[in-house]
């Protein structure tokens, strides 16, 4: 069925089966493969995207349920050649190893810091408990998120001029 929604500031109309998840729609129909699929049943957090600014698991929402909503994927957070302050912080702190979980970590942490730029380490750990890193580099991930807080206190943590 035809469904219209916004992805990274652009309105898209897709023709999908009702059973297609938003995650599969992003990856297979819209070719936005930055959103990763790990468990496909809502446990690992790798597929986290923002829907109207809120972090959700894109494997647990149907594409047809995104109708009229504004979806932001990892691709929508930064411009092509410039990393966001949060992404820079991940690089600085070596907060990724294989990188599979990283898009979900970044989108989740972006949603958290956008709403709670003064959150403490305990809050970061609680929120990221819904995202699994099988390289188990959690300590550096928490440090990267904490270090990025200052950018969100000043602005919204995005690179300039990019919608999302």
């Amino acid at each position, binding site marked *: 069925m035809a469904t219209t929604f916004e992805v990274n500031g652009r309105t898209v109309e897709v023709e999908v089966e009702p059973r297609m998840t938003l995650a599969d729609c992003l990856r297979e129909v819209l070719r936005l493969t930055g959103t990763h699929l790990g468990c496909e049943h809502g446990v690992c957090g790798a597929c986290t995207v923002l829907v109207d600014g809120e*972090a959700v698991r894109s494997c647990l929402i149907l594409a047809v349920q995104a109708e009229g909503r504004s979806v932001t994927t990892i691709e929508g957070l930064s411009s092509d050649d410039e990393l966001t302050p949060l992404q820079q912080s991940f690089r600085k702190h070596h907060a990724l190893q294989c990188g599979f979980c990283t898009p979900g970590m970044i989108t989740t942490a972006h949603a958290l810091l956008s709403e709670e730029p003064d959150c403490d380490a305990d809050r970061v750990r609680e929120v990221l*408990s819904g995202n699994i890193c099988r390289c188990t580099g959690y300590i550096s991930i928490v440090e990267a998120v904490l270090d990025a807080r200052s950018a969100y206190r000043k602005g919204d943590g995005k690179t300039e001029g990019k919608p999302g």
Partner: protein
Amino acid sequence: MKLPAFEYACPTTLAEAVTLLAAHDGEAKAIAGGQSLVPMLAFRIASPSLLVDLRKLPGLDAIRIDDSGVRLGAMVRWRDILDDARLVRAHPLLVAAVRHVAHYQIRNRGTVGGSIAHADPAAEMPGIVVACDAEIAVTGKAGARVIPANEFFVGALTTTLAPDEIITEIRLPAWPAGRRFGFEEFALRRGDFAIAAAAVFYDQDSAGGAANAHVGVIGVGDRPARLAPVEAVLNGARVDADVIARAAAATSAAVEPPEDIHASAAYRRSLVGTMVERALLAAAA
């Protein structure tokens, strides 16, 4: 796994939604936030012919607070509860329990009605509605009815809800100021399902003893339950260390917990006693 094929409808009125469910003779499922149902579809535990999306039904996302208590529209999300500053006073036990519900992303989609309809024995919301003597308002082909929470859950993932019925509202009785309460849960990670949890509250009589004690347990049976033998230990007694120890022992004696890969029955039996003990310590503090 990818989801099985199904038809999809997104009605704009409750009557239309009920008609769609009724017309499919048990083969249709209502979907609210989908945070329990979509995993069920992914595992092919559920494979309905039709999903009836409730997202466009008006008026199901309100939180109403008045002298009769707290009424949660079925589509109220966990996030909405935690964001509503009024509830910290209007129903602190609800807020304490919802802090344990699922992970950050799930809380942005998951709904109270969906959780109740799913009826996971280790989920917090079914435990709270049973512990608090809540009522579940539903509407189906035969009209609207109100089901007491202690009659709503039949077993694991099984409720008295008819295939054509939709939960519209959860009604929690008013929470008097000064009520003592505690909520304690043990899970492998914060946000995971409880291995065992306890929700307790009591009022105080003129002599300083506990009155109207409610002790609810989660994760130690095929459905949440209140434990009358434990409440009997508390009612009329001053909640001190001795009474709390007796309540914890009575809890472990009153449950028949299941065994699974996370915990043996014996471990759960011991753990739920500890949960009640800690919840009572918090309540009495």
